[in-house]
């Protein structure tokens, strides 16, 4: 996404076709075993077996059943399945799932970084804490503050069900905690008994975290590592889409071009799609008029150029990216404090027509949806998926996956009693091919996103070719793809309606 790199669809296909080679490829003597780093196109020999394809696709899989630990409140979420396929090296997408321990609620997030992964990593690790703190009651916040003052252990805030992964921010987390604490102190000053509403909490948390990111790098920091990390975070960017689910209340907050949709099954059995977010990019009229409203009329022609914000950025809301938020003076002042921008890999530039910053905001659009028994699943994904598949395609694929997975016949329960019977049953199951299919809806979606041709048909050769792309080429054909599919428990949702 940044630096801008995307080929028009037709050209993509042409190059891919050349890669796939229809028989007129290189002489056998020049053929090479599959490897990852080569930059020469002739070097490919596509040798990924179906097993290898599966192994690559499944490497980032995770599946979790939400356990009914607290039996008083029936969970509306049954299970979630998630997966990620990298195109950038290292991958710039992040995902996280956590439950709030002081309030009820599950949070799912997708974070799509650009200009490096630093911002996405920081947001994915920190945002949920801001949301959780925003939702806490006055009393809980007081306990937190009391614990901090007396150097006692804090109340646990989150339980990560899917942590964003290797943290590079261990050294600076004490600073992060200080800032989180400042935030809750301000919340305490508001003297609200019950804490913020979920909508407000999401709205404030996004903006607060973004402003903390921006302030952290402006503040004088002693430590070199901390300084450099904060700079990398602020000068890279990330879009974010997160859902907060508590009982039947589903809130989705979105800033940028990740997307969340609901899969809905009507009483007549027909499936449909309910989008919960709007992409914040140049194709969104509301965004265009917002931008025009926020800036002088003289800039109407220059705010969006080549379908990008100021001609450089695809999404028009994002965390970080202070290049599009700060005044030129501020940027100069901060960078002049002796950062080695080259070593830190910071993309430094001033876009043309940069007159009235900020141009970019992390303010999310928050939507609320009251879950109904017909809402079966929620799909959250980065734009890497939506570039390849439409909303309806995604619902169709998840439904297809579900019916496939549901066809688990012959069943293993009741379990056969002896070894011979068990073996023949297992062989039957194997023969019916059920086992070979994907066991994770997110994997299923990624497989189809990169393996389907323009008619939506699965082409194994195409899939293998896409996965064989060397690191330096992969990003030209596909983006990082991150998908989380959340399944709802229609029974408990139904039950909660009956109680009402």
């Amino acid at each position, binding site marked *: 996404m940044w630096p801008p790199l995307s080929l028009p669809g037709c050209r993509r296909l042409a190059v891919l076709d050349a890669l796939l080679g229809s028989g007129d490829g290189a002489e056998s003597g020049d053929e090479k075993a599959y*490897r990852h780093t080569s930059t020469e196109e002739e070097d490919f020999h596509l040798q990924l077996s179906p097993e290898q394809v599966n192994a690559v696709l499944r490497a980032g899989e995770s599946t979790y059943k939400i356990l009914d630990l607290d039996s008083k409140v029936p969970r509306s979420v049954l299970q979630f399945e998630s997966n990620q396929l990298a195109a950038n090296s290292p991958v710039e997408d992040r995902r996280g799932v956590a439950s709030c321990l002081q309030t009820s609620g599950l949070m799912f997030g997708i974070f799509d970084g650009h200009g490096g992964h630093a911002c996405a990593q920081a947001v994915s690790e920190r945002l949920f804490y801001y949301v959780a703190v925003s939702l806490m009651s006055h009393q809980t916040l007081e306990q937190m503050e009391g614990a901090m003052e007396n150097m006692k252990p804090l109340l646990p805030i989150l339980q990560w069900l899917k942590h964003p992964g290797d943290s590079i921010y261990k050294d600076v987390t004490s600073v*992060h905690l200080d800032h989180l604490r400042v935030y809750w102190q301000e919340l305490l000053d508001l003297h609200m008994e019950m804490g913020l509403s979920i909508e407000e909490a999401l709205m404030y948390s996004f903006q607060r975290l973004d402003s903390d990111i921006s302030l952290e790098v402006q503040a004088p920091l002693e430590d070199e590592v901390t300084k450099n990390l904060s700079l990398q975070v602020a000068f890279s960017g990330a879009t974010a889409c997160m859902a907060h689910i508590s009982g039947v209340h589903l809130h989705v907050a979105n800033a940028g071009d990740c997307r969340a949709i609901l899969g809905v099954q009507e009483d007549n059995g027909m499936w449909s799609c309910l989008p919960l977010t709007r992409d914040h990019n140049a194709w969104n009229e509301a965004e265009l008029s917002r931008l025009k409203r926020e800036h002088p009329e003289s800039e109407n022609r220059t705010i969006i150029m080549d379908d990008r914000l100021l001609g450089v950025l695809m999404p028009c809301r994002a965390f970080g990216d202070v290049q599009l938020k700060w005044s030129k003076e501020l940027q100069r002042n901060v960078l002049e404090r002796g950062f080695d921008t080259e070593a830190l890999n910071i993309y430094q530039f001033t876009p043309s027509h940069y007159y009235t910053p900020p141009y970019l905001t992390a303010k999310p659009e928050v939507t609320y949806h009251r879950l109904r028994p017909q809402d079966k699943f929620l799909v959250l994904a980065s734009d890497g998926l939506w570039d390849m598949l439409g909303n309806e395609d995604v619902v169709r694929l998840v439904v297809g996956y579900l019916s496939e997975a549901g066809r688990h016949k012959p069943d293993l329960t009741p379990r*056969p009693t002896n070894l011979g019977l068990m*073996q023949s049953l*297992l062989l039957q199951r194997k023969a019916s091919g059920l*086992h070979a299919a994907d066991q994770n809806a997110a994997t299923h979606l990624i497989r189809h996103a990169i393996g389907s041709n323009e008619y939506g048909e699965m082409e194994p050769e195409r899939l293998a070719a896409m996965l064989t792309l060397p690191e330096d080429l992969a990003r030209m054909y596909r983006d990082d793809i991150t998908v989380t599919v959340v399944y709802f428990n229609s029974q408990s949702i139904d039950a909660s309606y009956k109680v009402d």
Partner: protein
Amino acid sequence: MFYRFLSIIQRQRTSPRWQTWCLSRSSVSAAEAHSVTLPAQAQVVICGGGIMGTSVAYHLSRMGWKDIILLEQGRLAAGSTRFCAGILSTARHLTIEQKMADYSNKLYQQLEQETGIQTGYIRTGSVFLAQTQDRLISLKRINSRLNVIGIPSEIISPKKVAELHPFLNVHNLVGAMHVPEDAVVSSADVALALASAASQNGVQIYDRTSVLHVMVKKGQVTGVETDKGQIECQYFVNCAGQWAYELGLSNEEPVSIPLHACEHFYLLTRPLETPLQNNTPTIVDPDGRIYIRNWQGGILSGGFEKNPKPIFTEGKNQLEIQNLQEDWDHFEPLLSSLLRRMPELETLEIMKLVNCPETFTPDMRCIMGESPVIRGYFVLAGMNSAGLSFGGGAGKYLAEWIVHGYPSENVWELDLKRFGALQSSRTFLRHRVMEVMPLIYDLKVPRWDFQTGRQLRTSPLYDRLDAQGARWMEKHGFERPKYFVPPDKDLLALEQSKTFYKPDWFDIVESEVKCCKEAVCVIDMSSFTKFEITSIGDQALEVLQFLFSNDLDVPVGHIVHTGMLNEAGGYENDCSIARLSKRSFFMISPTDQQVHCWAWLRKHMPEDSSLVLEDVTWKYTGESLRAADTALNLIGPRAVDVLSELSYAPMTPDHFPTLFCKEMSVGYANGIRVMSMTHTGEPGFMLYIPIEYALHVYNEVMNVGQKYGIRNAGYYALRSLRIEKFFAFWGQDLNTLTTPMECGRESRVKLEKGMDFMGHDALLQQKQNGVYKRFTMFILEDHDTDLDLWPWWGEPIYRNGQYVGQTTSSAYSYTLERHVCLGFVHNFSKDTGEEQVVTADFVNRGEYEIDIAGCRFQAKAKLYPVTSLFTHKRRKDDVELSDLHGK
């Protein structure tokens, strides 16, 4: 701090006990009420109450250490130890592993008597089946090695197999190995017995106590923070099994312990109608990927499938633990394999499919030893599903290590320091263990390379060499070329060749070796470990003189081969050191020494000195610093012509004698460090090139070299060259228990250099009293290269029909047209088996045979290299060679 909070929160959340606490937060929970106070201090704190932790505690207490605390987060022996299949098998691929298993076997056998706790020990023996000839070769190799260390075993026919087990289908077998003294035992009871014995010896054991992190001050363990308070201690032992990785990272200064868990399944059945006898041998069918043992009249059968399921990638996760469930579809291939092997079991009733995660390491060897970054931090974990077999022996070695500073056997192959921080990425570990777990039952052939986790560290020439047909091997994460496939060869066949016989790259390496002998070859040796040691005053020389046995006070520009020895005179490292200036030295050692050598130097350098130690192996350096990351080895008689043409400097021996180091220009690049040595005994030069010049210098060398017949060569050629010249290599031939005196390197020891050095006294004693083993070169006489099995390493050596030692490495010498094996000759007393002095005369006056998979080949023993190999004219100051000829 914040991170600490988070990790505590995560840890508490995930331990089952915390849930109780969480649910009944307002009231006082049961666990809290019964909490005991921990002692404030102890000498040793062991974390982990499985078989490893209890074994370390047992052995430490037996060695007289009493002030020991063992902490277990749950209950004793309740982790992997509890679910272990309980098979004790001594048939291992490494001798050190065989010895550990043998010791464990003997220990467990008498444990019941010692402690009064029933361990369920039954000597059943085990039978390893071979479905193919290659498998049988592999078993025969193990068999030879078991026999020489005194573990009875024999190769038996399929017919004999059928007599040993009632249900076995033997139709597709070609043979088997029977190890009659192997046993089955309840591992949980063994752990409890060890714990009880330890506690009688004074060890204090606390269960339901979690270690949060280890406290460190100035690189030394000072204590342990637990959920029940702090304990001050000097030594900490991490035996946390699958959680060892996380525990290692929880310190402020993280300890990287590369391991990762995979789900592991086995089946339990109800008893047969006529219950199986409880001494029915355990069957291992590696080609069928399964093991089968008798279990309460029925069977227990599991295996190592081709498509393992890694687990806990993101650390300990309560959800994953609770979700661990039977996966019958996943188990189907193993079940089918079981019913093929024992068709009669079809009607046997299922009791349970157990899912118990096992821990695996990147190289299928366990992890033990002291952390290179924190003194007093010991690790014993990563058992690759052989925890029960290794438990006793590994615990003993680790206890010795803690008490004496070193174990009684060479355990380098298992030392934590063989890994660097680069092996600790979770992605790397997840991918690698998926390859390692099936490998447990895969056929292990010579020279196999891992396929996953590759291309991690590469030289700047990687793409250039790759395009020219390089085939790669990996060492310490570094890619090194094995050989270069000429354009007309079929590559795929080569890549897949798995054989115990002559490999298909034979001709390719032959032409590379020939080119080294007659013209000139270039080998990319960037992976070698390179350190620079500099000081403002004379400390550098003083420290090095103390750490190294040779005299380093040589004129600037000279290179010295020398060992870095321990107090006992054993090699901690074998290196070449160039004196760059009066106060700065450049040190080159083997690739896998990077962590070990760094730790050793740091440990023995004075703390507050002005010494600067720098790892320049692959450091990017600016203008002010020397960069020496790319190393090219120009081998061959014409190397001198290539270099002199490129540098316009005379390179003749008068101007550039052997073992000399100079900075000069090569092509456009200035400041290239050139050394007249090649690590092979052939004439030539090593070029140490700053990274940005690497491609330029390589291209220039190849262009100019064309008229001298230059070509690329790989490590296989280098290996053949060094072995035929009797060059020992640290890590393969040399280890911490071998001294220079034992391998004919007296000349590299300067006992009279005017100052004391590490190992001086031990060496002096050896010089006076003689040595107990002698490094010897063997040239195979009646071995047919095309038809006979090739030697590898670890083959038993027989002198006059008596076992005297094992080989450590071998290679085909294209010059001698014979196989050359290197190894140590001992002199075991015929009556007592005691080791006696080995004299040159003893070595020379024997008739030797080398046992390759049960087949003995005559060999000629030599204590000095074959002189005719040194074709180039010897010079007066040719130290490298005169050194080899010894005195």
